[in-house]
């Protein structure tokens, strides 16, 4: 599609960029999204699809609250996408488990949840169940499960559907999506706004720009005065053949997708810009699944893959407006699915600086320079 000058350009067509674009369009802006290439690393095409609370922000109260708000905003966000596209997201927020096969990890996670509860008070509750308790609740769990936590706020969604429904919604609301294009350079335009070079050649102008390019953001962010360096963290996943009956639970590592397959994930590896699936991770994920629910052993894995999470230095989201290039915003996080409901709503108020704007000071990138100067 031909790219025209636009009021706001969102750089990045993944779940983060499209959620922001969707919100901006609903707020009445004219928006273009630059999507990148089919072969780019794309967290949005490789993720797990959790809309998840447990453990989030135990060490950082603002993130605990932001996540809690996001989970609460999901039903209406999902409904809006359904209304526009007529399609189903398969959002299910009826609670989720974390299963443990190591007692020490179970104990440590209990502490994490208690810290999270300190931040959130009555906005968050959880249960800790020992192995026998959870086996009584969920017949079929394996003998190696030593404990589980449960939070009724946790849920999941079909992340590929989320991506495609966001895309159709952005188009339906009058947004422009330019695919197969890479922003190679950004600079201040003469007068006001920005000038973007696309694929080293064509130049377009935009009053404001929102950087949502995941791992592709780093070099562009530098050009408009941001200091944040994001880094890849590899997560690996398995998907099994489809099952014609429902698994009796959702966990942060084992979930049944709406089409029937069982998706297994949860590894974290520092592997640089390499999204290959490793043998050790495949075996480790399979072992975990079979430990938790032994009947899964008979299911065939039909594919495994690696995908790269986008990690900021402290792991929390970054929402910043550039000091040197006002009108340029950086939006970066690794929980693009959970936070999508806020990226399409509250974050837009913040970008537009409306009276309803949330206080996102805690997510400004200056926290990294404050920390590093404090260390010296």
């Amino acid at each position, binding site marked *: 599609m031909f790219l025209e000058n636009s009021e706001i350009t969102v750089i990045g067509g993944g779940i983060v960029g499209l959620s922001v674009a969707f919100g901006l369009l609903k707020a009445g802006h004219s928006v273009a999204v630059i999507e990148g290439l089919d072969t780019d690393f794309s967290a949005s095409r490789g993720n797990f699809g959790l809309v998840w609370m447990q453990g989030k922000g135990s060490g950082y109260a603002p993130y605990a609250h932001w996540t809690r708000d996001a989970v609460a905003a999901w039903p209406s966000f999902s409904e809006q996408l359904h209304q526009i596209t007529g399609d189903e997201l398969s959002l299910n927020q009826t609670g989720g488990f974390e299963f443990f096969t190591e007692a020490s990890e179970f104990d440590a996670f209990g502490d994490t949840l208690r810290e999270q509860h300190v931040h959130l008070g009555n906005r968050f509750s959880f249960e800790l169940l020992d192995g026998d308790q959870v086996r009584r609740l969920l017949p079929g769990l394996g003998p190696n499960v030593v404990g589980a936590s449960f939070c009724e706020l946790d849920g999941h969604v079909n992340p590929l559907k989320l991506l495609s429904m966001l895309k159709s919604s952005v188009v339906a609301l009058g947004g422009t999506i330019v695919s197969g294009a890479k922003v190679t350079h950004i600079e201040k335009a003469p007068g006001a706004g920005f000038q973007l070079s696309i694929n080293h050649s064509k130049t377009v102008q935009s009053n404001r720009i929102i950087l949502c390019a995941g791992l592709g953001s780093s070099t562009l962010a530098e050009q408009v005065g941001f200091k944040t360096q994001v880094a890849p963290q590899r997560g690996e996943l398995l998907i099994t*053949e*489809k*099952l*014609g*009956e429902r698994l009796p639970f959702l966990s942060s590592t084992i979930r049944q997708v709406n089409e*029937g397959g069982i998706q297994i994930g949860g590894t974290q590896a520092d592997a640089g810009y390499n999204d290959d699936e490793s043998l050790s991770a495949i075996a480790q994920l399979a072992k975990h699944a079979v430990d938790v629910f032994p*009947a*899964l052993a*008979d*299911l*065939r894995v039909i594919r495994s893959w690696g995908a790269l999470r986008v990690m900021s230095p402290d792991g929390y989201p970054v929402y910043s407006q550039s000091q040197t290039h006002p009108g340029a915003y950086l939006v970066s996080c690794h929980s693009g699915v959970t936070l999508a409901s806020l990226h399409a709503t509250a974050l837009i108020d913040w970008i537009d600086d409306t009276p309803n704007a949330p206080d996102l000071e805690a997510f400004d990138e200056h926290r990294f320079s404050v920390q590093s100067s404090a260390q010296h």
Partner: protein
Amino acid sequence: MSTASRFKARPSTNHFISLTIDGQSVLAKPGDSVAAAMLAYSGDAMRHTVKGSPRAAYCMMGVCFDCLVEVDGYPNTQACMVQVKEGMVIRRQQGLRKLKKEPTGGE
């Protein structure tokens, strides 16, 4: 209604393997794949997809996964990649597989 095999009847021999397909006794040739035995027996579908479409063995070389049947209680087995054995119990599949029930001596 059962459909006649789409293949010519083979000359009968003294060597055969007996098995069942959906409870019906069937004679197969040693060396037959489960898919070959099923195709020799009938021209019917070997399974119906989750959307209800009839399917039978297509590629016969392990590539297409259209010949998935239940063999001795194991669902989604590639019929073209497994050889027949005496007493084998084969069932056609309707829709998606279920988790395998542990053998408890009855259904």
